[in-house]
């Protein structure tokens, strides 16, 4: 029986983050695909509070919330650290991870769910946040420096899912003209081996997202 199990969903960036971290550290694990429309008794038992994926099971203990899991993984398996060692650099990594999850991502989703007359404002807001992110990247290869780190892992939504969302919705938020640095990072990122192995098939993801945008309220 595997010591480490991961309950995840193929299309979830949160789930894939954890897989990336485990693979980066060479941790063997058993992956269990959850059907989020029909949650398993195991998921409901292991994450009774949020009933969401990802959930990590290690030696019978369960850990939920992707950022919490990433911290746990880094503290438990020391190979290929994800977090910087210096407390200040670590604080910066945590700050940007929080920025991605609490500010950037919600702003992007807000565009998708906003009414037509509010959409332009929502787009402006999202672009502002993406510019802030791009500014942080500057001339670094990755957010983590020469190799991917916590922020790159957490930014998988920007690195891959955003492209799929853009194609599924017909809306282009990020392109080489308006975000040259971010697009350069995206190219490096998706070609990075540990990332490449932990992405859902693009066509399937687009096919999954498309029905959400063909609802009558979305016109772009």
């Amino acid at each position, binding site marked *: 029986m595997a010591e480490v199990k991961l309950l995840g969903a193929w299309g979830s960036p949160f789930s894939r983050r954890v897989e990336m971290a485990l693979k980066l550290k060479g941790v063997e694990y058993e992956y269990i695909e959850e059907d989020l429309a029909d949650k398993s008794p195991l998921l409901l038992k292991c994450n009774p509070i949020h009933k969401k994926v990802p959930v990590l099971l290690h030696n019978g*203990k369960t*850990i939920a*919330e992707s*950022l*919490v*899991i990433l911290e746990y993984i880094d503290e438990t398996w020391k190979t290929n650290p994800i977090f910087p060692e210096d407390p200040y650099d670590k*604080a910066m990594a945590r700050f940007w991870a*929080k*920025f991605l999850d609490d500010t950037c991502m919600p702003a992007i989703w807000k565009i998708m769910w906003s009414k037509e007359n509010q959409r332009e404002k929502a787009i402006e807001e999202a672009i502002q946040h993406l510019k802030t992110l791009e500014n942080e990247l500057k001339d670094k290869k990755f957010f983590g420096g020469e190799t991917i780190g916590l922020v790159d892992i957490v930014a998988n939504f920007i690195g891959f899912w955003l492209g799929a969302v853009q194609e599924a919705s017909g809306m282009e938020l990020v392109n080489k003209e308006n975000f040259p640095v971010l697009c350069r990072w995206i190219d490096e990122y998706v070609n990075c081996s540990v990332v490449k192995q932990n992405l859902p098939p693009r066509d399937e993801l687009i096919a999954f997202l498309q029905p959400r945008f063909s609802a009558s309220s979305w016109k772009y």
Partner: protein
Amino acid sequence: MAEVKLLGTWPSPFSYRVIWALKLKGIPYEYFEEDLSNKSPLLLQCNPVHKKIPVLIHGGKSICESIVILEYLEETWPQNPLMPDDPYERALARFWVKFVEEKGVAVWVKFFSSGEEKEKAMKDSLEMLKTIEEHALGKKKFFCGDKISLVDIAYGWMARWMEVIEELAGVKLFEPQKFPRLHAWMKDFKDEPMIKENLPGHDEMLVYFKNKH
């Protein structure tokens, strides 16, 4: 010149989180009260992304976001630890911190709204209280054991801010008999010397929030 500076505001529970951690660890610091209607150049320089308090400045470097600051303090000054040693216990602590970040103050201030938004906020808050009561506290005095931890600090807003908001919004969600564990925790938290000496006054808070809303 003090090595550690804190930019904060007196009515902010987020500001107090950092004060509590600094006091509990015995870290000397210089406090700067910010006027959020007229933000200082220092604040804008140190937190250009969010332009919010609290901001910790240590050795010239600035750290923003209260929980990020708390983790930084914990790692830089290991005395009087605020986090457990064991990685799993730490994961649990971080899980509960994240829970209150999502479901806490941000929801409670919606009590100042009306109609559907207020109704939803009240429903969400009640659920949040039940979850903490049933799952988070257990039989321990504090969230992680016998001593105050980062988790208690993150929930510290409940020790003063929750009652003020409820009073002003005319809402009574937190009833001691319905939430005995939480009630006991609130009392124990407020009784801790470093916390007791560092809480904003109830009446001043009422005046402040009344004027704001």
